[in-house]
């Protein structure tokens, strides 16, 4: 019982501490922290449009949070969700731009599969490198992020360039590819990608908790030697885990390209991949926790965008500071074990 309480209490305390510290910073800057907090809340939840924008930021974060979490369960650190989602989005946009007349019944599915495939491929590379060459996935995924950024910008500018604009973006995809957007959010791009994200969370939960593969994956994450003694191939599990992580991150392409922009824009992601690490950590790598954490970070991102206009000294960058502080509070292992000791 106390373990469950701690599982809930720790993230909530971390969020509280992070928010308080971050708002204290705004106080030093000469703002009224309560005023800033109100702007954050109103900006994120004030109207159905604002709430819709919050949800549309939260959707990619669910995918990247799940991506990081599934790798975590296998004892791997996926810092590469950013690169995987970049290539996923690029693949979806490429399919949609190169085959615009595709019948609309299958179009989103085909583009979605392309996104999943591209993400899987980009996740499998560090998985294979770790399993077969023993090189650490953290460095490899960071490097692959930069490579994905370079590749996607090359493909966008030299192969799929949108002739109608100076912006670095691809041609628009065929109309048949766009997935349904919900009208109740006053024009905010909340699409079928949101239920897809929730479905993905359910699938990840089912996979980890109820299937043999999920058990094997967690076994390798807990103890490689024990897993090996049980006849589980750690190498295979690692490749699978990072491939799955890549697939989940690739689904961001569905939310961004098919559900929102209708094209690939270079630099569209405000670092969804990195925030996904925070989401997974705050959500304690549990799909339900990830849904909640994604909503929180989505709200921070949306809420902070109002700060530029509404305050004198505080800019939207406050959301980065808040996220960083929350992340630091969550990951401070020593602090939490010290507090647990104090209670006893």
């Amino acid at each position, binding site marked *: 019982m106390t373990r469950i309480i701690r599982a809930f209490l720790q993230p909530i305390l971390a969020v509280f501490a992070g928010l308080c510290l971050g708002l204290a910073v705004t106080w030093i800057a000469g703002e009224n922290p309560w005023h800033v907090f109100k702007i954050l809340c109103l900006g994120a939840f004030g109207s159905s449009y604002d709430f819709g924008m919050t949800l549309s930021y939260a959707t990619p974060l669910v995918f990247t949070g799940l991506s990081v979490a599934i790798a975590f369960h296998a004892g791997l650190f996926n810092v590469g969700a950013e690169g995987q989602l970049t290539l996923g989005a690029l693949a979806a946009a490429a399919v949609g731009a190169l085959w615009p007349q595709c019948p609309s019944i299958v179009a989103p599915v085909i583009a979605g599969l392309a996104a999943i495939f591209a993400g899987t491929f980009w996740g499998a590379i560090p998985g294979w490198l770790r399993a077969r*060459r023993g*090189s650490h996935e953290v460095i*490899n995924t960071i490097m692959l992020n930069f490579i994905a950024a370079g590749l996607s910008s*090359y493909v966008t500018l030299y192969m799929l360039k949108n002739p109608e604009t100076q912006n670095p973006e691809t041609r628009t995809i065929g109309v048949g590819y766009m997935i349904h957007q919900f009208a109740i959010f006053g024009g905010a791009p909340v699409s079928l990608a949101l239920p897809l994200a929730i479905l993905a969370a359910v699938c990840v939960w089912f996979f980890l908790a109820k299937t043999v593969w999920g058990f094997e994956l967690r076994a390798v994450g807990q103890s490689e030697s024990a897993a090996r003694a049980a006849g589980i191939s750690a190498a295979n599990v690692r490749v699978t885990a990072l491939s799955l992580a890549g697939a989940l991150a690739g689904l961001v392409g569905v939310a961004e390209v098919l559900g929102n922009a209708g094209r690939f824009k270079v630099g569209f992601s405000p670092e969804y991949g990195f925030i996904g690490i925070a989401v997974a950590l705050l959500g304690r790598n549990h799909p339900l926790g990830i849904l909640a954490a994604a909503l929180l970070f989505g709200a921070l991102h949306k809420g902070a965008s109002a700060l530029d206009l509404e305050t004198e000294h505080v800019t939207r960058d406050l959301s*980065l500071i*808040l996220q960083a502080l929350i992340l630091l509070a969550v990951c401070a*292992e020593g602090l939490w074990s010290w507090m647990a000791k104090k209670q006893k």
Partner: protein
Amino acid sequence: MDGEKTKMIAQLLTSTLRVSTPLIFAALGGMFSERAGVINIALEGLMLVGAWAAAVGTLMTHSPWLGSGLGMLAGVLLAAIYGLFVIRLRANQIVAGMAINMFAFGLMPFLCKILYDVTGSTPAIPIADRFQSAPAYFVWLFVALAFVTMKYTPAGLWVSFAGEHPEALDAAGVRVNRVRWAAVLVSGALAGLGGATLSIFLSSSFSRSMTAGRGFMALAALIFGKWHPIRAALACLLFGFAEAVQIRLQGVVLWGSQPIPVQFIQILPYVVTILVLAGFVGRSRAPKALGTPFLRG
């Protein structure tokens, strides 16, 4: 024609030395921390605060030397926060490193807004107040110093042991975490200096995200250089050369009808790092205790 070619090569080499400077400083910083067993993903953020503080310091004092001193100090301060979390509070070093980067990227535009009422950049620094070439020479002094420290001094030995065999160091009566603290702070100072060279040497002001992944590139160079100060500095030169080529070749048509896509040159350092780590080109081995917090038993 030949004279022009020589001139172009000379320009390319000077520009290589210049753009490598921030990378070398940061890579040396990363070396101290990683050799002591603390992963340093935070280099990027440390460089960014260094760049900011150096620009502010130079604007206030009109001396690039005092400015870089301030940049160094800012790096040390942020590194102290990082150290507090990863050494004292045993936070996951990768997560904490990411968080420190995020923090720096959020804080700097915010401070610019408070100081200058401009979001995300400082006013331009007059050319007379900036460095013209000094850092490009001085950095090699630091490389030599780092090499001598690691190879010939007890401090260097302690750092190596803190990263390879912390238990042995502890048994010898040296506090592992003190060595790691020192290494992380030095790392912040050097990365801060690296950032300083970005804002008051290579450009004329601080701008948001001006590090543009250089912290990670320095990390890549460190790995490519097998965590060795001189080899890491040479790797930085190689990556700097790639950057210089990319600046010079922007829009130049070498063959066919299309200019060379800069993206391919941009990603080269990262591809090379992956290949090296995987053992396809040489082999690079990390310090044994890299990433594991030390807790006295």
